[in-house]
């Protein structure tokens, strides 16, 4: 127990936690969206994220960028960032759609029990991550330095870098856009209708299959953005990166109230910060264990999360 360390590093730990929390929150949206509509945990969502982390690296690799190349100038940085985001978003979105088509749709047609969905999801997750592991020889892959870390704001020992600021701000913007989309647009109304009552929505003329595909796609897009941020922040990716962060993201979704978009944001940021405090207190190897202990405690005392479940009812 390192209380003095925690108090001394309170500021930096909070900033790191918020950055990590923003990534986790974007990732958690995929779980929450799918759960809100289908009442199922998309276990393969972690691999949707994994594909994003590799897609942007591969794309940057096409331009000759690797972990040893020099950081590009401001224009180059902006260009590569946008291109990387596009590549990751496309790869993640496509993976999410394929997983839905291969692993879930045949079961849905047969009205399979919920556990069957979870098992095929595990199968899909295992197949994708392990295939990636074999192809990459289970080595980690370095990320080119797209953004040169500079401190933007500092007070005391707390320093916020440009990268951290970018991640937090962009994550918040994406959350806002998604929130507006679900609550304001026609397609979003369809999603909320299916979340409330799938059969009634279908009777009212909502195309259920299309809405479900759309939900997977949206989750995939957010995971793709999270994947690029993850690459930039951590600096390496590996075949099991999706799995480990996926568990955090799922915990965040449950913490905020799974099926609730604003809950995912709150849960993500809270989990990121709490995990970093736990790491400061007990040592960084206990970071993931802290997430699990937190998850069990939430489920014991508040099984529907902080903000409550349901995409349809909470109108969020």
């Amino acid at each position, binding site marked *: 127990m390192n209380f003095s360390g925690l108090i001394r590093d309170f500021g930096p730990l909070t900033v790191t936690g918020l950055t990590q929390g923003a990534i986790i929150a974007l990732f958690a949206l995929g779980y929450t969206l799918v759960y809100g509509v289908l009442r199922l945990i998309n276990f393969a969502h972690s691999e949707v994220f994994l594909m994003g982390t590799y897609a942007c690296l591969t794309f940057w690799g096409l331009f000759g960028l690797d972990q040893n190349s020099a950081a590009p100038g401001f224009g180059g940085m902006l260009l590569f960032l946008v291109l990387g985001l596009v590549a990751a978003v496309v790869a993640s979105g496509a993976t999410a759609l394929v997983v839905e088509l291969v692993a879930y749709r045949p079961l849905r047609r047969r009205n399979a029990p919920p556990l069957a969905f979870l*098992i095929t999801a595990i199968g899909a*997750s295992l197949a994708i991550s392990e295939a990636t592991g074999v192809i990459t020889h289970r080595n980690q892959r370095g990320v080119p330095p797209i953004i040169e870390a500079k401190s933007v704001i500092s007070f005391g020992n707390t320093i916020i870098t440009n990268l951290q600021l970018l991640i937090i701000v962009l994550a918040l913007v994406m959350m806002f856009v998604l929130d507006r989309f679900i609550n304001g647009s026609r397609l979003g109304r369809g999603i909320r209708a299916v979340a409330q009552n799938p059969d009634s929505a279908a009777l009212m003329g909502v195309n259920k299959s299309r809405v479900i595909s759309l939900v997977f796609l949206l989750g995939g897009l957010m995971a793709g953005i999270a994947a690029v941020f993850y690459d930039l922040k951590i600096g390496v990716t590996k075949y099991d990166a999706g799995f480990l962060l996926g568990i955090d993201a799922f915990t965040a979704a449950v913490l905020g109230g799974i099926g609730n978009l604003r809950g995912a944001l709150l849960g993500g940021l809270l989990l990121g910060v709490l995990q970093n405090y736990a790491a400061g207190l007990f040592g960084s190897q206990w970071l993931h264990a802290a997430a699990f202990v937190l998850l069990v405690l939430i489920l014991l005392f508040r099984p529907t999360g902080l903000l409550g479940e349901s995409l349809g009812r909470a109108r969020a």
Partner: protein
Amino acid sequence: MSETAVAPESAVSQKPGWRANGGTRGWFARQPSWVRAIVVLVMAVLAYLLPYADSVPLIGPQIVTQGIDWPSALFNMSYYVLLALGLNVVVGFAGLLDLGYVGFFAVGAYVTAMLTSPDSFLHTQWAWLAAVPVALAVTMLAGLLLGWPTLRLRGDYLAIVTLGFAEIIRIVATSTPNFARGDQGFTGVPHPPGTLANGKPVFGVTDATPYFWLGLSVIIMVILGVRNLDRSRVGRSWLAIREDEEAAEIMGVRTTKFKLWAFAIGAFIGGLGGVLFSGEQGFVNSQTFVLQFSILVLAGVVMGGSGNIAGAILGGALISYIPDRLRGISDPLFHTDLYEFRFAIFGVMIIVIMVLRPQGLIPSRRRAMELKDREKEVAPQ
């Protein structure tokens, strides 16, 4: 009505087919008890003779593994089958999806190692046999410990929390250098006792055959126990909980009690696997208990047919046998050992089986009917 006027469908039903009469299992059930006893005995004897499979002409060499010696592969199969049998109690009988089952295997193996190994902080250095009851008791306790807080959770949530349980055990194992010794692990875990007439120990290091026989004997005892449980009041309660927990509770089934029983018995069997494993390997470290292992066992149970003991055995044997058979064979595309692909292959297999044959290879009749029933209720998309 003349024979020719009969419609083709009823012609089929008039001449009872093999399948309509329940297939192999129907035939088996119709035999007098002495025939059944002989069949079971012959199968058991054949199982004990498996280490000599390579001396069978023609098929023998195809069956035995290349990259790993055959008795060791058989021993691996035996503890995988034990794990599958235990997980089948939790998932197949009681319908509680446990993704952290390997945690119990780890607890069994670690407690044995801590009590017996000279590296342990306990410095007890017991004999293997003396450590077994303690290890099993601790594992059962771990099962209750996991079961108690998760009793209120259903389905998906339960799965994630059990997954977390296994991860916590793994994290504790990797990051406590003084307690569980991480990567270094415990060396010198003693083998099971017993000496041959010529003074050599029965359970040596060179030949895994005696370990396989030990594992097989444990499996047979577990099968008898689990089968009797399944047919008892406990088994019927599990069935009721699996099909509809609320309805079961209303009908007077004490769901809390029987769910805890399922966890404890499942944990006990998993612990048995861990105890055997540490006795054979003589070494336990944190690398053994990766999460994919849990998922692999689950894949085995689902593949074989969850809720059916024969299915669980087949599934457990396959998940161990297929990768071991692939060892030492390299693929033409990437030139890596096919063994490396084992988890990826099983991932694909899980999807294919769930989509094409959700009841598994040797299904439980009742489970298959439940699935059929749901299929009828499907709403138009």
